[in-house]
Structure formats: C-alpha cells, structure tokens
C-alpha cells in the first residue's frame, strides 16, 4: 500500500490552487503510487491555531504555513509571516535562509519540537487593501484590519485595530462589516481570493516586501519515508517556491497597472519613513526578548546593510 500523508496548508482553497496544489499534484504524479499526499486547506481538518499541535501529535503529517499564523511555540515565530521591513524583494528570503544562516536556526528550533523544517520560501509583499482610501497615517486610525499577529502588534501603534479570524471567513467579514480592510498580502492575492471584490483601495506602501513561510513535517513520519521520496518532496516544494516567485512578481505589477477593481493610493515617502523608523525600534524590542531572536535580528540587519550599500537594483535611496 502506498504511504499516505495528510498535509494542511494555512491558505484557503482559492489561493491553495496556486501556492500549494500544483506542487502536491506534481509530487503525487512522480511518486507514481509509492506515496500520496492529500492536501487540505485552511481550517479544513483542524483550525489554523491548532495546526502546529496537530502536526506535532501526528494527526496531520505535514503543514505549509508561516510560523506566525500557526502559532508555532518556537523562538522564531515572530519572524515568520511578515516581520516589518525585514525584506524588500521575494528573493531576499531564500538568500537569508540559504546564504545567511537562517535555515540552520529554523531547523534547530523545530527539531526541538519534534518537527522537520523542510524548506522556506517567499510569498508576496504585505499591503493594505481597504474599503476607505488611505492617504496618510491618520487614515489608518481605528481601522479594523485582518493581519498577521506580529504585523498587528507592530501596526497597533498607528491606531490600527488588528482582528484575527479564520482565513476562509475574511471575505464574508469584509461584507458583514466585521473588518474595514486587510493587511495580509499583495494585490495578486487580493484578486485571486476575491478580496478585491469587497474592498476598493490598495495602498502601494508595504510593511514588508516578502512573506516568509515553510513546509514542515512531523519528524517521525518524515523518517518513515524512503530517502528517494524525501528528496522528491524537497524538490517539489522547491518547485512550489519557484512558482510563487514568478506568479506573484508578475501579478503584482500587472494588476496595479491593468487591474480593474482596486484604486491605488499612497502615503508620502516622508511620512512612511516614520513607520520604517518605528520598525527599527520594534526590531530592537524583539531582539531583547531572547538570544535566538537577537541572532535572527542581527542577520536581518547584516543582510539589509549589504543590500543598502550595494545600491541599485538591490536598494534605491
């Protein structure tokens, strides 16, 4: 009998269609009956907040998520998802993991919890999509916004009221008035999952250039899989990261220019600089919380410093 795995992603079905399903179908096809991964979307088997525990206990074999959304009980949780201004482009993420040492830190942290960190990949930048236009920081005050936990913690100082809801309920919540907007994704995702139908404005300033997310597996289940299938899984997941690189990159530019549903607004650069400055303070607060966190923040600083000094096209101004 083939090995059967259950994988749950934190993404809902509409998004999973792009960010997860193609890779899983590819894997199942090449594995040719030796192994089959069944894919489940956000909250389908267990709620996203219980995802980590369910993987740890083996109810779910593998997970695609950022650390923040699934509330992983590790030291690196705050950096998954969108850590404010840690990255500018989606290629920053694989570089940080593979060349600047984040991969090793993540592997060690998750090994402590009995979980295998398979690989990290980047998604889209984090922009606001709202029902009312945002032209200054003042416009953000009092807005009930669905966002990542850490981003929410950071944005609260600007008067944003972060709200947590199951992912599949966001579109409905925008309609029922539970939410005024989202700070969760780039414009590609807004269009793909239907949020562009229930919001009107897209803010071009972002609080992070790329999401950090991962594939994980229960360590025992991983060990039971023969080596060649482990390798195949790694390759297919890498392929999934690559798909997202071009799918988001192309979509972000195209939809800003040609998308019919969202009107673009911007907060002036000088004003937005106060948010960037606040992020630096936020980094230092996080670094003070533990040694591991300090190590990660140090790597972010080092990397961004290199990028800034290297000039165009890596950083402008």
């Amino acid at each position, binding site marked *: 009998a083939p090995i059967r795995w259950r994988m749950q992603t934190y993404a809902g079905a509409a998004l999973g269609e792009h960010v997860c399903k193609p890779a899983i179908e590819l894997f199942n096809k090449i594995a040719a009956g030796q192994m089959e991964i069944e894919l489940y979307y956000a909250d389908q088997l267990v709620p996203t907040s219980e995802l980590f*525990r*369910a993987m740890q206990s*083996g109810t779910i074999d593998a997970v695609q998520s950022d650390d923040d959304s699934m509330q992983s009980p590790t030291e690196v949780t705050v950096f998954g998802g969108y850590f404010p201004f840690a990255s500018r482009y989606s290629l920053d993420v694989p570089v940080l993991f593979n060349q600047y040492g984040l991969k090793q830190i993540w592997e060690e942290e998750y090994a402590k919890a009995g979980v295998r960190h398979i690989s990290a990949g980047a998604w889209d930048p984090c922009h606001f999509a709202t029902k009312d236009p945002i032209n200054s920081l003042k416009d953000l005050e009092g807005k009930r916004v669905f966002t990542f936990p850490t981003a929410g913690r950071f944005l609260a100082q600007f008067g944003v009221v972060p709200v947590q809801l199951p992912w599949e309920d966001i579109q409905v919540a925008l309609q*029922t008035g539970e939410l005024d907007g989202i700070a969760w994704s780039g414009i590609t995702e807004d269009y793909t999952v239907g949020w562009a139908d229930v919001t009107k404005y897209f803010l071009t300033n972002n609080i992070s250039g790329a999401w950090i997310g991962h594939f994980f597996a229960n360590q025992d289940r991983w060990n039971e899989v023969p080596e060649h299938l482990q390798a195949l899984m790694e390759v297919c997941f890498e392929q999934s990261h690559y798909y997202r690189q071009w799918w988001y990159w192309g979509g972000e530019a195209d939809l800003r220019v040609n998308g019919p549903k969202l009107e673009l607004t911007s907060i002036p650069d000088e004003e937005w600089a106060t948010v960037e400055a606040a992020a630096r303070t936020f980094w230092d607060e996080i670094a003070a919380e533990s040694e591991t966190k300090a190590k990660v923040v140090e790597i972010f600083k080092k990397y961004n410093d290199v990028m800034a000094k290297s000039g165009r096209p890596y950083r402008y101004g």
Partner: protein
Amino acid sequence: MPYEYIAIVMFMGMMAMLLSGQRVFAGIGFVAVVAAIALWGDRGGYDIAFTSAIKLMNWYPMLTLPMFVWMGYVMSETRLADDLYRMFHVWFGPIPGGLAIGTILLMVLVSAMNGLSVAGLAIGATIALPELLKRGYDKRMVTGIIQGGSSLGILVPPSIVLVLYAMIARQPVGQLWLAGVFPGLLMAGFFLLYVVIRCGLNPKMGPPLSREELATITWSERIRLLRAGVLPVVIFASMMGPFVLGYVSLVESSVIGATIATFVAIAKRRLTKQVWETCVVNTLGVSCMFMWILLAALAFGAVFDGLGAVRAIESFFLEDLGLGPWTILILMQVSFLVMGMFLDDTAMLVIVAPLYIPLVAKLDLGMPPGDVLIWYGVLYTITCQVAYITPPFGYNLFLMRAMAPDQVSLGDIYRSIVPITGIMLLTLAVIILFPEIALWLPHQVYGQ
C-alpha cells in the same frame, strides 16, 4: 478498508445511533470520534473532537445565535404580537378569508423579527388559531397555513438555519439572508393565493366578520391599531438597516435587535418574572442544543473530509455515472426531501453538507461559481421548511400537536399539511427554474 466503505459505515452508524433515540449530538459526535480513532489513532480522535470546539469558538457569526433565539422568545412569550394580530384582524376581517390572510401577513412580519420558526408557531397557534376557529374558519386550512407561515421564519431574514448553512458551506451570511427575502415573499404570496382561491370557491371556509361586529369597531380604533404595525418595522429596520449600510457588523446588529425587543417588552410591562425565567432558560436550552450539534457536526465533517470521501463521491457522480448537472441537482433535492421526513434540519445539514455542498459547487449549472452556493442555500432552507412539517418527524408538527386547541386532532394536523407541502414544493420548483428570484437582491446590495 477503502475509504469509501469507511464513509458508508460512518453514515450507517450515525443513522443507527439517531434511530436509537439517543441525543442527536451524541450520536453524530460518537461516530465522528470513533472514525477518527480508527483512522488516525487515539491522538487523532481527541485532536479532532477538541479542536472542533475551537473551530466553533472562532466562527464569529455563531455569536448571533443566542441573540436571535432570545429575541424570538421575548417576542412570543411577552405577546408582543398581540396588537399586530388585532390590527390585521380588524383591517382584513371584512373580506372572505380575511383573517387567514391577516394571519399569513402576521407570520411574515414575525419572521422578519426572529430567526427560527418556533416563535411564529407559538404566536400563530396560541393567538391566531383559537380566534380563527371561533369564527368558523376551516380548521385544516388554518392549521396548515400557520404551520407553513411560521416556517417562513427560517427563510425570511434573519435566519438561524442560513447561519448554520453559511458556517458549513463557508458562504457569506449577509448574501444568504438577502437571497431568502424574495423566495420567502413568493412563498407567502402562494399561501395568500391559496387562501383566496379556496375561500373564493367556498366562502364557508373563511367567513367574513359580521356587520354588527364591524360596527362595534370605531375608525379611531382602527387607526390606533395601525400603530402596532410600526413595531416590527422599527425592530427590523434598526437591526438590518445599520448592518446593510455598513455602520455595524452582522453580529452587532443581532445584539441591537435583541436589545430593542427587550426594551419594548419592558416598556409594555410584559416582561414579568415568570416570562423572564422562561426566556432565559429556553434560550440557554435551544442555544446549547444548536451549539452541541454543530460541534459534533464539525468533528464529523472534518473526519469525513480527512477520508477524502468527498472526492471519491464527486468522481462517482460526475464521471462514473455521467449524470447531467440538473439531474444530479434534482436527485439531491428528492433524496433531501425524503430524508427531511425523518430528520430535523440540523441533522440533515450535518449529513448532507459534506456530500452535497462540495458536489453542488462542482456542478456546471450555467451560473457564476459565487452564486451557486448562495442559491443552493435557499433551496436547502425551503427543503428544511418541508422537513419541519412532514411526518413522521417534524418540529412544527410536534409543536402544533402540543399547542393547538383540543378540537384540532392529530389527523387534522397531518391532513392540513398536504396542500402546504404542495405550495412549498411549488416554490422550490420556481426557485430552481428562476434562480434570479433568490440572487437578484444580493447582487443589487453587494454588486457583482
């Protein structure tokens, strides 16, 4: 054992548990955890069971449930609808079948103020029915329309059944509620037509008020009674208005509605100690019943999903049998109606949701995908209405049996629902043929 067989065993097990008469949520939950343990080991069992409680907690529209239940009890227990009934009585009394027409209109207004059918049935059976019988109305006709009319409570917004459907189908509650408006009015219109035709053919079935009696009602009295009609408009408008305009959220609107109903009852000095006790206790009872069934249903759904059985069933119907989408849809509704005779709506939703909703979403019915599940929510709700009144198992049937005056026998109740069921099925057919009736309003409000 192949997963398809496990799925079948799960269904059979659940049916057996339900037939044994054990509490519905226990039967569903038990089968769910046993299947989870068989599939994923003991940890799987308790993970699925407990996380279902967390899922239920996270789903915010659930917060509206106790509010709407409370509102329904306040409305029926404090007899807030008495004046409303008097109003219809006086204004429609002079025409043949007029009191029955007034009763249907009363049921529509009560439906717009609460989310279940219980409040409407209580008001209809205790206020309207004795009066109608005293006036010599045909007992089977009026027993029938009260049952049918009260079931509009789940189709006309607000509707708890549509909240439950929204949760399981992951569809927007606001759109579903709006989709229920015109089908609800259409069905009420058919009820009216039915009364008019029958009383027109045979005036003895609904004698008008006598001249002498009419003479005793002064015009100032008639005008004064019109004010009673303001109450439901105020409650409905203050609840739905700020919500549709975007000032408050869905959940908040339910609290506003419940608060206003409570204050009106206090202002009218109807909220006595005893009424208060009944409302508080029954709201807890009904809310617990729904919540626990849903919790069990979520566990059942997760295991069923985890089996991959949904995919197997989809390919069975669509590819292996090669049935057309409309054939499948009609087969589903027929099987649904048959099940509805034996099961209550929540149990039905639990059983069919994991099967039917994904299947409906896959059917190519020539409608945009976003519309299909909204429209289907309305079809589901009408089927629930039929289930409510069809023997051997129907909520409204039981309640009617308990509340109706003695001269209405069980046989009368059973026979009374035949034409009403016919009208409901007619409405169902019309909505299937013309989905725009359901979809027009949500499109207007949410724009698509």
